[in-house]
């Protein structure tokens, strides 16, 4: 089976119903995408498929088709991703860091469709991403900073 990951075609020998998460982590050794709940409840496994946030833990690899998968490993290749990563560092968001790949990918998906999200829009987009270290206030601040940064550069 062939999938497109971070701009590269990858051939993987797995059943088509294998969740994308495990293909990324265990077959392609791209471990930045994290396993949290296995049931789309926590958002730790979020990646983008054609720019849309997808929970990879319940997405069959066979359902991706020719969709372009983007993971945390290549988030920094986009302007939005760079701005988010910089804001994450400036605000010093991370603690244990385990959920942050998913938080960043979800935030990037949000900024794709809403360049200047207000608090309510951030709540709507980010409520699916659980953080147990309690980085929520800083995630919120960092998204706003990244949005302002991107606006300034336009």
């Amino acid at each position, binding site marked *: 089976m062939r999938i497109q990951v971070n701009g590269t075609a990858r051939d993987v020998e797995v059943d088509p119903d294998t969740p994308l998460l495990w293909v990324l982590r265990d077959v392609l050794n791209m471990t930045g995408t994290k396993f949290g709940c*296995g*049931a*789309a*409840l926590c*958002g730790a496994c*979020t990646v983008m498929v054609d720019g*849309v*946030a*997808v*929970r990879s833990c*319940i*997405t*069959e690899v066979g*359902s991706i088709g020719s969709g372009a998968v983007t993971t945390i490993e290549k988030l920094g290749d986009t302007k939005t991703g760079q701005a988010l990563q910089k804001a994450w560092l400036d605000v010093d968001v991370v603690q244990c860091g385990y959920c942050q790949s998913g938080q960043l990918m*979800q935030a990037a*998906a*949000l*900024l*794709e*469709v*809403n360049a200047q999200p207000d608090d309510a*829009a951030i709540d*709507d*987009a980010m*409520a*699916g991403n659980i953080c147990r270290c309690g980085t929520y206030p800083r995630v919120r601040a960092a998204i706003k900073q990244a949005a302002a940064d991107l606006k300034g550069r336009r």
Partner: protein
Amino acid sequence: MTANATKVRRTARWAAPVLATVAVAALGTYVAEAQQARSNNLMTPGVQRAVAATGLAPVESFSSIQNTAERSIALFLEASKVVEHPRCINCHPVTRRPTQGDDMHAHVPPITSEAATHAAGVPCGSCHGQSNRPTGSAGIQSIPGAPHWGLAPQSMGWQTLTSGQICEQLKDPKRNGNRSLEQIRVHMSEDHLVAWAWHPGQGRTPAPGTQEQFGSLIAAWIATGAHCPK
């Protein structure tokens, strides 16, 4: 539940010791606990009837009702065991926040109508695919899915409505997607997303009867003048 409540929890009793609810919860399995815990005002009499239904009565069984209008109403009420079943009504919210389960608790994670229009960056497709997805867990056994998975438009919000109100809304082209009654019948009998209600995946009870029986009831309801209950 208030409109913007994001977690439906136990019906709280002010000052009642938590122990009481713990003790009650401990009597059931965790599924039972969830059902017990989350009774709320979305569980209208119509929904309760739908949840309790074990099947659908055939169209012929209504032929003894002489008055056509009364027969039409009875046919609709039978069909509403599907319409108001949680497998259908959970994604017809008035508040724009979908619900889950036979107890219609708030969707986890919290979702707003914005999701349906992709505006929040978490479209339904972030989690719901073309088919049901098993998780291999005893808690949530599968994530439901079907082509075009999504929330019904605001105009088709059914939650908290009576069976009669839902019936009137179904007939109103302004609120039913500008559909004729014949188009409603086709939708109900043949649409694949409607069909999902009878194949909802592991861990979910299907809507009563079959889609074919449901389609026949809708057809008979239309043929008898599509009268609505009060």
